[in-house]
């Protein structure tokens, strides 16, 4: 029997969560992927479309320009709010809600490329209300990737990550709105250690795993610099 059709070796097997033997497929997500935090690499092991194991790494984690931009970004309210809107747009796009995603993207553009603050603030308020009211989105994202205070503390995640994917989406929009209104975000740091990601996506299917990663509201290449970038 041909053990490598087309030059691709056959998949090795492994026990799945029901104790049956099932093929293992290795799939790498990132570092460049639409609606994905740039620079993050997630090496997944799939059985069917369920992520049974994953490990993360960052490309160019000690790239000085990315570092400099990040420091600059965290000081600038405009950039902070625009990044939250960008992340919200990615999550909405992954959830398949194109209209809301387009709105979030337009707010981001308005924040970055116009001097007006009131227009985007009003738009953001309307978007927040629209997303909060959608029962279809609530149904679609309900109880995906739930995290309580105990989980957060154990994994070193910031307190803003509490709840499920929908809660975190609303949190992103709220943080953007607060920052535009001139309030400082609560807490000293809301960095998400990328080492925590494999634990969060293990056991979910590929689509849900992507929703969970998008809901973490990462900054580009953010995360603890000490992470192993193999």
């Amino acid at each position, binding site marked *: 029997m041909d053990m490598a059709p087309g030059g691709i070796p056959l998949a090795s097997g492994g026990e799945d969560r029901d104790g049956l033997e099932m093929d293992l497929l290795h799939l790498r997500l990132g570092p460049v992927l639409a609606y994905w935090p740039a620079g993050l690499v997630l090496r997944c092991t799939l059985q069917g479309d369920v992520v049974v194991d994953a490990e993360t790494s960052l490309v160019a984690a000690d790239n000085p320009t990315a570092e400099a931009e990040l420091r600059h970004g965290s000081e600038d309210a405009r950039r902070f709010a625009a990044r939250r809107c960008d992340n919200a747009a990615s999550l909405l796009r992954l959830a398949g809600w*194109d209209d809301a995603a387009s709105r979030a993207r337009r707010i981001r553009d308005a924040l970055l490329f116009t001097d007006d603050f009131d227009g985007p603030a009003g738009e953001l308020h309307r978007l927040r209300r629209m997303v909060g009211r959608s029962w*279809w989105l609530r149904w679609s994202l309900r109880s995906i990737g739930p995290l309580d205070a105990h989980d957060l503390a154990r994994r070193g995640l910031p307190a803003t990550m509490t709840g499920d994917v929908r809660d975190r989406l609303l949190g992103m929009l709220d943080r953007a709105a607060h920052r535009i209104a001139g309030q400082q975000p609560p807490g000293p740091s809301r960095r998400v250690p990328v080492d925590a990601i494999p634990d969060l996506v293990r056991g979910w299917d590929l689509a849900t795993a*992507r929703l969970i990663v998008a809901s973490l509201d990462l900054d580009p290449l953010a995360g603890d610099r000490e992470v192993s970038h193999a």
Partner: protein
Amino acid sequence: MPEPAVTVVPAGWALPAAGLLGLLAVAAAALDGFLTARTTGTSSPGLSQPFGEVARLMRQRRRTMVAADRLLWRVGSAGLLLMALMIITVVPLGRWTLFDLDVGVIWFNAMDVLAWAFVWLTGWGANSAHSLVGGYRFLAHGLAYELPLMFALVAPAVGASSLNVGTVAAAQQGLWFVVWMPVAFVVFCLGVLAIAVWGPFAPALGADVAGGVTAELSGVDRLLFQGGRYALLAAGAAFAVPMFLGGGAGPLLPAWAWVLVKTLALLAVFVWLRRRLPVARPDLFMEAGWLVLLPAVLLQDLIVAVVAAGRS
């Protein structure tokens, strides 16, 4: 022997019928381009989007994958368009039809089930993980939408005591079936969105799996697949007209014009819905399909059957 509800036209009219379906599909794509351009705020109105896309894909070279199953891949990507063409053969345009089949309703059902094969084969053929995940997502949706869709088709057939599409349309003189079979109509529309892998039923092509079934499609194959989706939306909207919307019935305009007007209106609603709703994730929709849609549409069938038995 009852008078036939429709006149069968010579087979040569199949070509104009296909052209009409093509025009409807282009209209749907242009409307989608327009709505997309409006919400994303680009300066161009977006109406020419389908023409640009066709030109781009016609010129694009076909890509292929290592160990791709090319035959099945291409059969799958061309299949949706074929399904749409087969569906419209039994849809009467006013008084005329191409194919006055006694079991036209079953014909539609037989054609819509082909989507299972064609969409999945397109996902399978590429030999890519994302495509295959997309293909299986479609099957998961299929398990949830197909039975409700079948029972939704039963309601008008029982109401008209016929499986002939022309007879079903003729049975709606005075009262359209959509008025007293609203549940069946809504479920039928959901089914059409699902076979066209459209709107809430697009996770098989989702951005989260890099385009899913379409991830590796390029050139003409992609054009046929995407064109087939629009054509299926149009064919589904056209089939809803004789089944639920009174066929060619309406004041002033001739019957054929009413069929087109109703088809375009329903098609526009389908296209507009795409951007308005988040996706129905396949794992969640299974629950909605079996616990909500199926009982609701069975109840609808029961009511229709009781009314039909009472009348005869």
